[in-house]
């Protein structure tokens, strides 16, 4: 059965997105991508240095991958827009993950500035994915502004604390007609699997893989967990009941 994820004009078979920060060496990135099966990789434009030769992170992004530059470091919509334009001018394509953060203690995103940046960049033809604090109203505004997907956080970025925002993310999945990609906070493959079982369109993972003792092994585990969670969602999990329910009803003999 074909189960493609469509974002903008691209169709994806893998629902795991990979982040490229925090690795001991950029050289491990191709192996992480291959092991995970991910097709999308996000790269902080602030670290892209075309003059850096082999040290340039873009040199390690597999040619087949979809590059999703992010605006990490931006504190305002204006800065995010400037970074996105720089990325496109540098040949990074039209996908952009808007990341506007005004808070250096918890690194929580600024949804208001993100909406403003989305309006501008979507109008300029970018495929905009919005990293955000999970909030239905803000998500709606992002969709109205032209977001191709919204990316609510599961927990503060880099914490590996798991899907702490479960209820808010679940509501967004139910209510919004764009792909919901759970981004940030996912620390274990089981948590990625849970997000997918809930109906998330995809999951983005960085710290959990980069800070693992064996990043390539952990990337593989995440790839499998995301695929398993998606399969479970498609299969339609059975209802949860407070009481034990016999598989053969006790009143079946009564007939219709």
């Amino acid at each position, binding site marked *: 059965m074909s189960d493609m994820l469509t974002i903008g004009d691209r169709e994806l078979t893998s629902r795991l997105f990979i982040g490229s*920060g*925090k*690795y*001991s*060496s*950029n050289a491990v990135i191709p192996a992480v991508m291959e092991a995970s099966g991910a097709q999308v990789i996000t790269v902080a434009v*602030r*670290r*892209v*240095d075309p003059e*850096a030769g082999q*040290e340039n992170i873009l040199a390690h992004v597999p040619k087949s991958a979809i590059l999703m530059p992010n605006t990490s*470091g931006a*504190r305002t919509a204006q800065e995010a827009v400037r970074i996105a334009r*720089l990325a496109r001018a540098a040949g990074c394509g039209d996908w952009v993950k808007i990341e506007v*953060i*005004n*808070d*250096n*203690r*918890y*690194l929580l995103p600024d949804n208001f500035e993100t909406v403003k940046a989305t309006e501008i960049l979507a109008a300029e033809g970018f495929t905009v994915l919005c990293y955000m604090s999970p909030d239905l109203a803000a998500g709606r505004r992002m969709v109205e502004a032209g977001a191709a997907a919204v990316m609510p956080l599961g927990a503060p970025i*880099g*914490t*590996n604390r798991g899907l702490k925002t479960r209820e808010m993310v679940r509501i967004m999945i139910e209510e919004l007609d764009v792909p919901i990609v759970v981004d940030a906070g996912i620390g274990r493959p089981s948590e990625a699997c849970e997000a997918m079982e809930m109906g998330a369109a995809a999951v983005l993972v960085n*710290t959990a893989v*980069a*800070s693992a003792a064996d990043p390539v092994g952990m990337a593989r585990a995440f790839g499998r967990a995301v695929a398993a969670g998606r399969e479970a969602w498609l299969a339609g999990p059975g209802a949860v009941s407070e009481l034990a329910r016999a598989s053969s009803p006790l009143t079946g003999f009564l007939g219709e």
Partner: protein
Amino acid sequence: MSFYDVLKSVDMASVASALAAATEADVLRALASERPTRADFLALLSPAAARQLEPMARRAHELTVRHFGRAINLFTPLYLANHCVNRCVYCGFNTHHDINRRQLTLEEVEAEARCIAATGLRHILLLTGEAPRTSSVEYMADCARVLAKYFASLSVEVYPLDEAGYARLLEAGIDGMTMFQEVYDEAAYLPLHPGGPKRDYRFRLEAPDRACAAGFRQVGVGALLGLHDWRSEAFCTGLHADYLQSAYPSVEVNVSVPRIRPQTGGFQPKVEVGDRDLVQYIAALRIFMPRAGITLSSRERPGLRDNLLRLGVTRMSAGVSTSVGGRATGQSDPGQFEISDDRSVAEMAAMFQSQGYQPVYKDWQ
């Protein structure tokens, strides 16, 4: 309210007694805390915590990898001038010292920039002594225009400015600043700064506030370890960083942990700060402030820097010269202080890689 008011509200006698009274149980509780308080930070800096260095180091390492990954930012200082009107007893630039005073011309700045850029570094820290008539804000802005062709980001470690001065630098492309208070204890500060504008303790202490208000992206603070009791100075430094992070949430806060080094003038520090003390300070700081940057300079020797890499440090200098114009001309005037690690950028990068860390040359533009 500025940090001056915050610090005034802290009873330093109570800090000293709390440091002395902290127990091993207090330290273990602080180590286990998800959100360490000021009291936890004090416990981690206490003599009692010195017996828990290994678990502290492990916690600091774990938090650093979680929040920063196995990547470390590299930068280098560029001394633009060594003119200074201050009489700081511990500094090689003291106005009474008979050293060759000079300030780089814009052509010389460009020559230095070429040398540094050739190493691959894209972040640079500009330094001057305190001589507003020669090393003026306009001079620094002119230098920034030259340097912008070579570097992705520029920071300054210069004398304290008013808010308009910082705004002018920001407009010229400088968006980071470091201001070492040197000594947070006001009573201890004054005899170490017998003359010059640096005697104005409060104007210096509030400089990071003014830079933040002007819109700087990155602000660094630090005490010069060895000038006063290191535990209480470390506590005040942490309070300063924590205050800045709360008051200006969009600003990236860094803490430097410099130990005093030999310099022209031969000042002998009265307080010994050993390697174990430095490890305790860095680990305590990381546990108290998981997301603050921690900078380690070339004041420390290579072997120690290699080992401190895993304990919480996120930024290191490389290819350092503390002489004015030392790189392009090969001159070796006495610098501001003697460095202990003269490894090149390439050598530092190789060390990081051998330890499983990625050297980051560019992290913002």
